[in-house]
């Protein structure tokens, strides 16, 4: 296996694994936030704000993998 083919196989795989983990975490967080809003609808604004900030932190992990992909993309060639 050459360097290029190893990179071509592993870089998309890295993004997809990161996306899998983020997807699971986002689902769990969204479910918990929706449940909290359902229990206490008057606090919906605060819960939504905390939820969006948490989403941003989780999503950033996938974005790091995506940025790595853009950096290495030129080397796959």
């Amino acid at each position, binding site marked *: 296996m050459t360097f290029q083919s190893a990179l071509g196989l592993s870089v998309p795989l890295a993004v997809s694994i990161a996306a899998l983990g983020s997807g699971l975490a986002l689902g769990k967080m969204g479910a918990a936030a929706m449940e909290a809003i359902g229990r206490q609808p008057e606090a919906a604004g605060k819960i939504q704000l905390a939820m*969006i*900030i948490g*989403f941003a932190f989780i999503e950033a992990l996938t*974005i790091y993998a995506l*940025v790595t992909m*853009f*950096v290495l*993309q*030129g080397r796959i060639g």
Partner: protein
Amino acid sequence: MFLLNVVVAVENAGAGPEGPPELPNIITLIYDKFSSMPFAQFLHHWENVFFSLLIAVFLGVLSYFASRKPKLVPGGLQNFLEMVVEGISNFVCGILGEEGKNYVPFLGTLFIYIFCMNMFGLIPGMKSPSSSINTTAALAITVFIYVQYTGIRKLGILGYIDHFAGRPRDLAGILLVPLMFPLHIITELAKPLSLSVRLFGNVLGEDVLIAVFVGLGISIVGFLKLPLGIPLHFPFVFLAILTGAIQALVFSVLSTIYFLMMFPHEEH
């Protein structure tokens, strides 16, 4: 240092022929037509700076015309902008408290500017300057420096060092100082990195997705030899509007929270 390495690596990746696909904009069109002329090369080199300055000029002219003849009972543009400013002010003061009024101009400008930069890529012939890490890193470093300045001014030099040492008040706290000090410094340095890479990655990912689907929409009807394609990227434009707005919100909310973390704590 790591940030600088990423900047250089991304610039090299973008400059190569194998860089991520992007839609043509007015500057790449000018460059294709007059690629030997120095002014076209200059524009192509400073592409992102040109577009971010264009947005800044646009926002400046808009607010000049909105506030040129302020009326007591606002209508039209003035009404809309007052609504936006009031919404941002309430939002920031809701997080930071009464002191937050001093930070509304900075944080509100960040939100409006980043929102406009993200939306600019959806206008045909334009490009999102925030899809380059240089733009987002500049914004994140500005936030970083302002947050540290606020920390030193609010807490004093000793209070600032105390904050970094984890506020030791008893023996256990003092024993933990060698652990807390590097931890706090790394946390502070990771903030601008994550802020800039998050915004840049989201906007670039969205733009590349749209560019790939535009290319696909043209190439699947290529056998007809038409100058048109199928607008396959259409659903992703709405996704891009949503992502752009949320990322602008997240950038300014996280900056607000970094300010909040630097404020003196209530319990002391």
